[in-house]
């Protein structure tokens, strides 16, 4: 009896895990789709369609630790912009990046999920809650 229950429980767990994974896959592909729209409108001009940026001016988003590393730092870059020189893969870039705090939490979560999983990047998704939390810290 106990064993049966345990098996039943395990089955439930598996089932719920499976459906969780299912919704997050759906969630991610929706974020990727919407994130690309935000990217094309607000980021592409500087960082380019292939995410490789513009030499001397705008840094690449492909293969940089700023994109695939800390999510809070990444969210801050979009919310506050960047004007101090930073070194990205050994190079400096001379344009400033304006703050994009006018984007909604959802748009920021989507575009960051998109850049973390495009141009050869592979990193975790960014949620609306994570953006909301960072914005509240300002």
């Amino acid at each position, binding site marked *: 009896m106990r064993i049966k229950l345990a098996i039943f429980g395990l089955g439930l767990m598996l089932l719920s895990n499976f459906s969780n994974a299912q919704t997050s896959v759906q969630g991610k592909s929706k974020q990727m789709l919407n994130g690309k729209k935000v990217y*094309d*409108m*607000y980021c*592409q*001009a*500087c960082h*380019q*369609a*292939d995410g*490789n*940026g*513009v*030499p*001397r*001016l*705008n840094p*690449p988003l492909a293969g940089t630790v700023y994109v695939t590393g800390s999510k809070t730092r990444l969210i801050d870059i979009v919310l506050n*912009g960047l004007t101090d*020189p930073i070194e990205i893969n050994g190079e*400096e870039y*001379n*344009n*400033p*990046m*304006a*703050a994009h705090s*006018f984007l909604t939490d959802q748009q920021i979560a989507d575009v960051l999920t998109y850049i973390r999983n495009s141009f050869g990047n592979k990193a975790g998704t960014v949620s609306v809650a994570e953006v909301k939390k960072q914005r509240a810290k300002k």
Partner: protein
Amino acid sequence: MQKIRLVVAMLMLLNVIAAQPKLQVAIQLPVGFTSKVVANDLGRVRHIAVNSNGDLYMKLDRLVNGKGIYRLRDKNGDGVMEDTLAFGNYTGTGIGINNGYLYATSDQTIYRYKFDENQNIVNLDQPEIVVDGLLNKRQHASKSITFDKVGNLYVNIGAPSNVCQEQDRQKGSPGLTPCPILENAGGIWQFNTSKTNQTLSDGIRYATGMRNALGIDWNNEVNDLFVTIHGRDMLYQYFPEMYNQKLGAELPSETFYRVKKGDDCGWPYIHWDHFQNKKILNPEYGGDGKKEGAPNAISPLVGFPGHMAPNALLIYSGNQFPAKYKNGAFIAFHGSWNRTPEPQEGFYVVFVPMKNGLPTGKWEVFADGFSGMSPVTNLSAAKHRPTGLAQGEDGSIYVSDDKAGYVWKISYNK
């Protein structure tokens, strides 16, 4: 034995391959012209200058082996510049030769080096400082230089801004009137070359209202300054209701001006629109795509398609090229980025026929093919990007590339 021969043969082959410049693309030129690669793989070669003895000087914006200036010399007169000299530990763009000196610039300082009678530099490690402390806020900080015939130096101090908004490059941020940047940037300053250790206040603001006049040359035929200016970015991205994607790629014009002392080219209030042939008020200053502005600003001689980045200007004074080229303008277009997702444009050298300082015909592409592809859909894939121009004593011209560090020599063979 056989094996050894094979290895030797392979090594020889490798040597031959190594001696060939890599990544070479075919440059297309008008009939009768030929090109030859004279330097390669030097990284960010920005502006260049050729001395009367044929020595080629290149200013690098990224140090190569710790040096920011390279000189190539053909020691034995066989047409190959086999001798390399490197000096200067700073990066930058500007370089020029005037009255016994080589001038070179970092983004805030103008240095000079003295030539001896054999055209060798006597103070390689101790250049004189001609002007120091020029505005360097990274954006548009390259200091291009040229000289007139009476001992003055002209330097471009680019505006560290897109269009002088309260918040630079912030969608929706209004433009500032008057634009405070114009006090110490956004124009051409004139300095006397008979003095050293000058600062901005020793010079005069020769002309204003220029976002970034990277191309700058003195026209000896008419004794005036000529410049090419990079137009503003982001008309479509900030104002999609006035400029659609295609229009935002074509506008504003990149511009070519004749500039007299005291002239104003109108930045940041207006941009040139080569479709309407008008100075159009920028939307950040109340413009709607049609309203004109800056009535006192001068108009350009030519408006080119947008964003192609005219990085260098050379008024041709040589005798080698056919007569139509004399006193005309060569302009090196670096190639665009702000046309995305439309294909990028530029990556070529253009010629504007001129007489008495005025264009006598339509501009035409003179040297093409530097990008190594057509169309250029991704800027990062372009092989070369024209950046600098120089004229040799024999009337050949040189084109530099800051993507792969190449320099081409272009000659006319009757």
